[in-house]
């Protein structure tokens, strides 16, 4: 792995390796001393062209727990045109010796451009680009699913296991969601069955080519498929005009059709868990009852995010020479 640009690039083996590494990282985060010397002397740049709280803080925490130096670059308010600013910024970062660039950009494909342009020699990690991909979110969701639902509900060792046979419903604003796109690819790679649920206006054109079923009725999916997990997506109102922008008649109607409330929570199988990538619109896609229920693992997702990002940074940055048969002697 040289870069992490898309969840679709990962092979099943690579994805499982990341999850296994994340599990070891998570174990270190339960200790009193959480900092590890592993990436000492490496520099990680957080290049955020779009607002983000938890992803940036999560990457920053992950890099610092591994003793890397972190430079936060927020491009908000920059008036330079996109292409130029990305190139100039990348050249600046290259001159400063960035070993990894974590990039969030409002334009789909910006991380790919950065990785393939030769502007920077560092590893590029996609932290969300437009409506395209958010691979580390999908990885932390997969990690959370595996922890709770594989191997006797997390009581036995799940190292090396994938998500074979799990049924996951991804509900809501699929159209604007890079989280949904990354999850559909990654969960499919890991062997889970994904069903996308949303109003027809919020399901993208061409969804038939995705490796997921599509339904427009949440209650039917809950009753018929008995999903092991439901992932509620945020209604991305900043990408719509006010009052839903014509994607749905009113917030109340959206909530009636696709919101997760106490009634729908009760209709789920007993072992099912509730995920949400955050930030939540309480009362719109998820009710307070559901968000605060013991089956919601939303807060745990944030903690798992740090472990998964530590794993990604470790796997991208720690190794040096290309693979040979040589091993170090004790």
């Amino acid at each position, binding site marked *: 792995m040289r870069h992490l640009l898309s969840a679709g690039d990962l092979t099943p083996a690579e994805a499982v390796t990341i999850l296994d590494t994340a599990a070891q990282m998570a174990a270190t985060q339960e200790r009193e*001393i959480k900092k590890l010397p592993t990436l000492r002397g490496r520099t990680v740049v957080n290049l955020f062209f779009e607002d983000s709280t938890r992803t940036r803080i999560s990457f920053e925490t992950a890099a610092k727990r591994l003793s890397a130096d972190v430079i936060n670059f927020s491009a908000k308010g920059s008036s330079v045109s996109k292409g130029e600013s990305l190139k100039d910024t990348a050249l600046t970062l290259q001159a400063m010796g960035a070993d990894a660039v974590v990039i969030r950009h409002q334009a789909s494909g910006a991380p790919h451009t950065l990785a393939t342009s030769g502007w920077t020699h560092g590893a590029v990690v996609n932290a969300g680009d437009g409506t395209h991909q958010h691979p580390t979110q999908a990885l932390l969701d997969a990690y959370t699913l595996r922890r709770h639902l594989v191997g006797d509900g997390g009581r036995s060792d799940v190292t090396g296991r994938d998500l074979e046979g799990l049924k996951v419903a991804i509900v809501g604003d699929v159209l604007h969601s890079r989280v949904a796109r990354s999850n559909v690819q990654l969960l499919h790679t890991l062997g889970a069955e994904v069903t996308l649920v949303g109003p027809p206006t919020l399901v993208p054109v061409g969804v038939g080519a995705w490796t997921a079923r599509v339904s427009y009725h949440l209650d039917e999916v809950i009753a018929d498929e008995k999903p092991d997990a439901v992932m509620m997506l945020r209604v991305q109102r900043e990408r719509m005009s006010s009052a839903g922008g014509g994607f749905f008649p009113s917030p109340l109607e959206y909530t009636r059709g696709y919101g997760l409330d106490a009634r729908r929570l009760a209709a789920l199988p007993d072992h099912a868990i509730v995920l949400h990538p955050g930030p939540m619109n309480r009362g719109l896609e998820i009710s307070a009852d559901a968000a605060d229920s013991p089956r919601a693992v939303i807060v745990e997702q944030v903690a798992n995010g740090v472990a998964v990002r530590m794993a990604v940074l470790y796997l991208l940055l720690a190794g040096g020479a290309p*693979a040979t048969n040589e091993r170090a002697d004790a």
Partner: protein
Amino acid sequence: MGTSTSTTGGPAEDGNLVLGPPEIARALTRIAHEILERNKGGADLVLLGIPTRGLPLARRLAERLVAVEPGLSAAGLVGSLDVTMHRDDLAQHPTRPIGTTRVPGDGIDGRVVVLVDDVLFSGRTIRAALDAISDLGRPRAVQLAALVDRGHRELPIRADYVGKNLPTSTTERVRVLLDETDGRDAVLIEGGTR
């Protein structure tokens, strides 16, 4: 971790057999008695095996300790200590998988930690292990047990308990095979010009 565990080696005739199953068993039994003698019993002991092959060795040592001192429990004695994230040579090698660190019982504060590894060579793994231990707690003392000491130290580190001192040249490779990981017990020397 860490002796040469290349996959290029094959059956026994590829290497020079140095220790067979009975010699390994005797060496471990002797080390177990030395550990008890030196520490005047096993009350405060924790055996931390360094994956991959240090861990089964630590388990075998614990079985022997329990056999001599019936008050001990093997499960409460053995833990594993992964040193990957504390190594100083990460950038010189392809990315290594991270092993499990598990400390038994109430942790290592105030106890005597015996590190267990298969081969002691440069000493760099042990240096990393000492750093890893200091992140886990503050033991009263740290001791080192190695099945094979092949010399060529690069750091001021020595073993407290050694199964076999094995003079080698740097071009040779020492392979430790264990039943738990490799299907049989053997210590082999391979390659090199002798």
